[in-house]
């Protein structure tokens, strides 16, 4: 029996209104992603990959089409239920880290658990464990501005992992950090995928990032140009760092 996909997009369209003109960011996307897959979504800027990422992460709703997250149709859910779903099933990692500047590393990691009504002690315990896992146990009490880009991103990954999400959604996770730190981040993702069988979706325009994935989806002008195995993927036009 075939397993139910964790993410399923059916003919998803997204149209933005920019002044007088309608811009089609996504024009009919169909994707199925199974549990435990490591997928890279690549494409030039303006290809619609960030929009797609917002759709998968339920941060934004499609204009048309259906999105199922773990079997639940999220295209028509009210914001409060979407928030709960996000908090439970998805761990976000952003290009600009998006840590809250006034909270320390550990407080940032504890934040998602607070919205899930986890007790203070448990929050602390789980966050400490998660920060140790990403190699940040020594800098838990630091504010984001006291950390390097790579360190901030590792805190952000700990924050994404702390709720034990079904899917890790990373939007250009190496975009704002140096190559060496970027490699470390990607190795961390690789380990999470191989050792813990986590589902990871990375949006990127960098070739070395995409090479860590096992499946690559290439977008162009809001449609899927290619969708296939990473091995032997034809990266024509994709930047190599």
């Amino acid at each position, binding site marked *: 029996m075939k397993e139910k996909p964790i993410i399923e997009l059916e003919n998803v369209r997204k149209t933005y209104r920019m002044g007088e003109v309608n811009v089609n960011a996504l024009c009919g996307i169909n994707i199925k992603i199974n549990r435990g897959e490591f997928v890279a979504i690549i494409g030039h800027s303006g290809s619609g990959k960030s929009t797609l990422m917002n759709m998968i992460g339920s941060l934004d709703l499609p204009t048309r089409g259906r999105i199922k997250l773990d079997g639940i149709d999220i295209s028509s859910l009210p914001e409060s239920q979407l928030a709960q779903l*996000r908090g439970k099933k998805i761990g976000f990692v952003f290009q600009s880290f998006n840590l809250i500047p006034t909270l320390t590393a550990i407080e940032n990691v504890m934040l998602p658990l607070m919205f*899930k009504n986890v007790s203070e002690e448990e929050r602390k315990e789980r966050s400490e464990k998660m920060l140790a896992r990403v190699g940040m146990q020594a800098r838990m009490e630091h504010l984001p501005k006291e950390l390097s880009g790579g360190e901030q991103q590792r805190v952000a990954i700990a*924050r994404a992992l702390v709720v034990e999400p079904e899917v890790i959604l990373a939007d250009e996770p190496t975009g704002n950090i140096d190559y060496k730190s970027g490699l470390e981040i990607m190795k961390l993702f690789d380990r999470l995928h191989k050792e813990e069988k986590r589902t990871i979706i990375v949006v990127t325009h960098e070739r070395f990032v995409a090479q860590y994935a096992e499946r690559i989806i290439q977008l162009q002008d809001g449609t899927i140009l290619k969708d296939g195995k990473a091995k032997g993927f034809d990266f024509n036009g994709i930047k190599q760092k």
Partner: protein
Amino acid sequence: MFSDYFKLALRTFRHKPTRSWLTILGIFIGIAAVVALISLGQGMQEAINQQFEILGTDKITIYPGASSFGVLGSLLGSERMSDHDISIIKRISGVNIVVGVAMTIAKVVSGDEHQYTMVIGYNPDEINIKDFIGVTIIDGRELRANDGYKVMIGYSLGYEDIYEEPIEVGDTLEISGKSFTVVGIVSEVGNPGYDNRIYINRDLFYSIFTQEGYPLVVVRTKEGYDTTSVADAIKEKLRKDRNLEEGSENFTVMTSQQLQKMISDIIGVIQTIVIGIAAISLLVGGTGIMNTMYTSVLERTREIGIMKAVGAKNFDIGMVFFIESGILGLVGGVIGIVFGLSMAYAVELAATSLDISLKASFDPLIIGGALLFSFIIGSVSGIIPTLQAAKLKPAESLRYE
């Protein structure tokens, strides 16, 4: 969960202290002003109630003229109550004592100083000073009907610096050119209108000031009678005697309760106006909070997006901002109350040093009310920015720079 919202809300005070304090300043000035004014107003009310307690609540005063000018108005006018009026009042059931009072303002010389003071002429045989004013003798003796050029003086003349050199029993006063000896000093009422008076025998009063009739008649009712109905009976009998229609009386009958209420009403109106003006500053303070919260929401648009991305519901976001603005109001309120009450106390001290009896009231109700009010102002001012924050779309707020 609530304590978590609280912690998140309190962060702003740590990270934006200057802005927080400036916002709080706006609220605290308003609260301080309102608290000080209410405290003093209530203190004034309590002082007046206390005075009426001394003066007696079973008293009715009757004076010529329409009520709007009061007893002082009757002094200025030429109308007087007559002995005939008094004989009518005496026959009414429930009336215990009726006293015709003569009064005028005269030049009173003590040593080489002079003041213009209220001189009261009454007959000590008709009423003792305790029943008449509610005061007792604290030095010397009470005025007697057979006293010649003798006077009894009010508390302030003997114990406060109305005259640079306080007047003592045995001193000589010159009233309207005639020499009088002070035989007694009476206790304090707490109102300069009573405490600066000089009492002399009524017959002597008429021979000095060439007046007749009474600008004021004081009635004490018998025990067990309702003062208001006795006052109504007096009004009706006098009206019939003078052949007047109801409502067109040329005299006024007032019980001490009515007088007390009239004064309270006047103070109430003044207090409402003054506090109303002070309350405008609270409104301004509230606008300040609203402004600060708007800025805060704008600055933290991205932060709101992050929180939503990690599972915060609109309600969670709303609560954080709501509590934050409530705290701004509440802290402003606490400081305002402390400041306002200190201000009221300072005014009380200043007034006391000027011999004005004005007490600040430290009613827990004022304190509790002001606290609640400041929290409400804060949170109500925060409502619109809060709703705005809560409704932000996560994808859009994450893009916000």
